[in-house]
Structure formats: C-alpha cells, structure tokens
C-alpha cells in the first residue's frame, strides 16, 4: 500500500515547499489595492480642483495695479447701466444701481470704492458684512454667510442633540429587547431620508405651523431651517451615541446595579459618562452634517444674507449659497472663484470636524480604559 500522504500528491520535499507564484492571488490583490488608491486619488483631486478654482481671489492684489485702467472702464460700464435703468427694471431690486445709493455707498466706504467698483474681490470685501455678488457693485462679504450657517447649526444642535442622545439612552438602557430591535433600524432609516423631502416638509408644513405658534413675519427663517436640519442630524447623532452606549461593558452596568443603584442612576452616572467620547463624536458629526446640508437650507431658511441674532430672521448658509448660485455664475468670474472658496472652507471645516471626532474618540477611549487619566 502507498503512503496515503503521497497519494494526495503532497510530499514533503524541498521541491514541493518552493515558493509558488499564484496568478489569481496576485491579480486580485493588485486590483483591490488599485481600486482603493483610485478612490483616495479621486477625493484628493476633487479637493485640489475646488481649491485651485478659488485661488485667483488670493492673486487679486498683485493684479490690482494693472487693473486700474480696466476698473475705470468698468465704472463707465456701470454708469451706462444706470442710464439704461428704465430698460432693465429688473436691476432695481438690487438697490445699488441707482446713482443716489451709489453716492451714499461711496461716501460710506471711502477708499474701498475703487475696489468695489471693479469686479475683483479683495480680502477686505471677503470679510465685509454684505453678500451682494450680482449687483453692479458686487460685494462678497462672507461674514453674513458664516453667521447664518453658525446660527442655523446652533439651532439645529439645540434641538437634535438632546433628542437624539436621550432617544439613544432609552434605546440602549431602558427599552426591552424587542423594542430596541424596532427603534434602532427605524431611526437609522431616517438617515437615508432624502433631504429634499425634509426640506419640502419644512417648507410646506413646519413653516406655517411655527408661524402660527410664534407669529413672526417671514415664513421661512433660521428657526424653521434649524428644526428641519435637526431632523436630518438626529439619526446620525442617535446611531453613533447608541453604539457608544451599547459598547459600554456590561460589567459596568452590573457593578452599578449590584451596588443598589436604580436603572436611571446607572444610566446617568455610569453608562453615559463612560460613553462621553462617543457622544462627543456623534455631536461633531451631527454638526458636520448640518454645516454641509444644502437642500434643506435652500428650501427652508429664506436665503437672505442677514446678520442678526434673532432666530426668526431669514439666513443664508454657506452651502446653500453654492447650491443657489453656482448654476448661474459666469465661468472664471470672481463670483465663481468666491463660490469655490466657500467650497474649500466647507471642506476644510468638515474635514477638521471629522478628524477631531476621530482622534478625540480614539485618544480619549484608549486613555480612559488603560487608566492613564483620572
């Protein structure tokens, strides 16, 4: 009888142990690596494109001197359009095309006038308080957009964070098993809800509803937009918080209960503090979602670039500005470049938020469970 091992064709010799080259293995490995790098490359390229398109704004100063002649020409052109205002009555709505207002603006702004008269945005006008990109005297002040975005983010988080965290706490610590199996997927489904539907709901239903309650004038404002945004942020905050809470070791809960703590005390003093880094990350990601949200902002906030602390005033967010104006802007125009600058700022902001969430959670959790921090 032959040795059974030999029959299987596996003899332990130097020959059989020599390294073999496996084609399929090699190919599949390379393809997967290639795809991974491709996606990373695409993301990097997108960022470079966005950033590149916003660059011309920063080069303005050098060109300014050379542009003086051109500027005068433009002012003349502006003058022409003033004369022809009867023909194009549509321009009146910008409120800066008539000579009277121009004069007032000129007096008020003094030396800036030349720059404003041109179509070039400078650093000064970027930090200005007016966003009037399509007037004859365009101004690209980003401050009102930032204020609007921050205001709406604040309103959205004031609503979303408590609701989402308490819902997660209920689901993780109190709900019976069968109920959790329903709640969690149901709320997670909401994360995939198209924001245009939430926006539509806010526009048609919530706006009237809140107007009836608070009795403000403008139907669409930061408050309505913020609440609608909260609806988009809740699923994200809920899911991550819930995961963080269920990741708290069961021994913690048991230890607390065995000491005679009630379920509430256990949830409040043990589970919640142990999950703090995860909850912090959840809130940061929620902020990121609201910050970048375009459709809801476009539909429900009224889109007037005002600076005020009143939550019932209309606002215009950074993302909504891109969404609303990019389609109508002249390619290569300053306005075009400024919109890309806004895009870069959004990218940088969200990138840092995500990075912060990631590193904070990792660093904090590791420290906490290795006992390096009291």
């Amino acid at each position, binding site marked *: 009888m032959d040795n059974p091992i030999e029959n299987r064709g596996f003899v332990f010799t130097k020959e059989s142990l020599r390294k073999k080259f496996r084609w399929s293995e090699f190919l599949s490995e390379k393809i997967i690596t290639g795809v991974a790098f491709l996606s990373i490359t695409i993301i990097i390229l997108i960022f470079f494109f966005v950033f590149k398109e916003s660059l011309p704004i920063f080069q303005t100063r050098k060109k300014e001197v050379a542009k003086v002649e051109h500027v005068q020409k433009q002012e003349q052109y502006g003058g022409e359009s003033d004369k022809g205002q009867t023909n194009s009555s549509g321009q009146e709505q910008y409120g800066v095309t008539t000579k009277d207002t121009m004069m007032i603006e000129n007096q008020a702004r003094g030396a800036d006038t030349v720059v404003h008269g041109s179509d070039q945005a400078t650093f000064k006008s970027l930090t200005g308080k007016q966003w009037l990109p399509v007037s004859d005297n365009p101004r690209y002040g980003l401050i009102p957009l930032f204020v609007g975005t921050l205001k709406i983010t604040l309103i959205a988080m004031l609503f979303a964070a408590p609701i989402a965290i308490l819902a997660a706490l209920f689901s993780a610590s109190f709900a019976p098993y069968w109920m959790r199996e329903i709640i969690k997927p149901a709320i997670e489904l909401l994360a995939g809800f198209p924001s245009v539907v939430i926006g539509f709901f806010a526009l048609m239903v919530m706006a009237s509803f809140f107007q009836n309650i608070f009795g403000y004038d403008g139907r669409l404002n930061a408050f309505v937009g913020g609440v609608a945004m909260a609806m988009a942020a809740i699923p994200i905050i809920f899911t991550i918080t819930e995961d963080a809470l269920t990741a708290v070791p069961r021994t913690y809960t*048991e230890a*607390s209960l*065995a*000491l*005679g703590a009630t379920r509430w005390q256990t949830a409040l003093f043990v589970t919640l503090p142990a999950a703090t880094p995860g909850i912090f990350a959840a809130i940061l990601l929620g902020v990121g979602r609201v910050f970048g949200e375009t459709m809801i902002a476009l539909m429900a906030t009224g889109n007037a670039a005002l600076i005020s602390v009143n939550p019932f005033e209309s606002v215009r967010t950074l993302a909504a500005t891109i969404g609303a104006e990019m389609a109508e802007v002249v390619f290569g125009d300053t306005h075009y470049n400024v919109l890309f600058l806004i895009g870069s700022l959004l990218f940088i902001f969200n990138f840092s938020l995500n990075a912060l969430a990631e590193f904070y959670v990792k660093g904090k959790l590791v420290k906490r469970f290795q006992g*390096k*921090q*009291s």
Partner: protein
Amino acid sequence: MKEAKIKTRDLSLFYGAKMALNSITMDIPEKEVTAFIGPSGCGKSTFLRTLNRMNDLIPGVRITGEVLVDSLNIYDKQIDVVNLRKKVGMVFQKSNPFAKSIFENVAYGPRINGINNKTKLEEIVESSLKKAFIWEEVKDRLQDSAMGLSGGQQQRMCIARTLAVEPEIILMDEPASALDPISTAKIEELIFELKKNYTIVIVTHNMQQAARVSDLTAFFYLGELIEFGKTKKIFTTPDKKHTEEYITGRFG
C-alpha cells in the same frame, strides 16, 4: 450551625425552556462562609445570582420557588430590587471598576444613596478601603484612575466598593479566578476577616480555595444540589459518590 440568613425553597430556574436549576432547597447560615463548587455550567453561578436577583437582567429567565432572606421572600412582587441589592452585595469574577478615580469608585454606592457630605464620604471611603485591606496601598492616590491599579488591587477595591454600601450578605462570583497566587491569598485573607461581620457566599472553581476559606460547602452538578454540609466533612468523608469523584478529580 448558626441561624440561617438565606433560605431557598424548591428554587428552580429556567432559561426559556431549559432548566438550569432544579428544585434547590438549602439554608445558608449567618456570618459564615459558604462555598459553591461544581463543574462549569452546573448552575452554581446562576444560583448565586438568584440570591440578589441579578438574573432579572437576563431576558427569558423564569424562576419558581422561594428565596427567603431574613425570612422575606425576595421574589415577592412587593420587594424593591434596588433595596434588596443594597442588602445583598456582589463581587464579580472580573474586577469591574468604573473609569473613575479610586475615591469616586468607592463613593459611588453611598453617593447614589444620597450621601453628599464630603467628610462623611471620605470617612466611608477610608473605612471601606481599610476593611478591604487596600487602604495602605492606595491612600496616597485616591484621585488616580482605578483602571491603573493591578488586577488584585482592582478586585479588592471592588470589594471595598461593595462594603461601602454596608450590605449584610456578600456574594462573590469566583472573585480570585483571574488573579495570581499572591493576590488570591490576600483575597482569601480578606474573606476570612469579613466573615466576622458579613454572611459570605462564594462560588469557586478552585477546590483548595473552597477548602481553605469556607465553613460550609455545597456541591452542584447539572443544576442540582448534590451535597451540602460542613466543608471538613465534604472534603474528607462525603456522603455521595459523585461528590467524592469530583473532589478527588476523577471528573469535572
């Protein structure tokens, strides 16, 4: 035998349809150490957990029969589980300190019972840590994270945390199984001290440990209480053949 602190009467426990404990009747005496021994899965840990109703946390558990602590049935509908657990404390197999300072860990129990006076808390923490023989080791770093303690220290701190609630009964679920011999010896010494004031029930896989620390030993097998009696007798002249075989290491 001293007066019975805990009595169980025909206690059976089911996980769904599966019977995990079969009609257990035993009297656990006051201020003595009672050890539960038996092979893995024999129900000794499950039985221990029925004594302070920790099994309530597991879905699908059904219990029949009675558990009487100081002659009160703890499975009565009128019983408040929270107060029961203050009276019947528990120490777990794996030390489970909270990710807080040592002080906060021990003060947690008194705090949730409404003690907020700082000097009072400090007193309780100090006396509890002293009772658990760990005060000398940690008195200078009470504000450090409890996660930085060694395994044995963590376990003794967990015992101190249990003592801080002033229970009458302490249930220990293999408290030394994850510890080195030196730490184990310290825990055993501690158990010996504690039995002067507390009724202690300990589950252990370590036969020598049961022989060393306990006054009474109960041998469980497949959810049944096979034999229960004085430790000395169980380890020298057990009545049942099963017990003898397990203790001498012929199965298990």
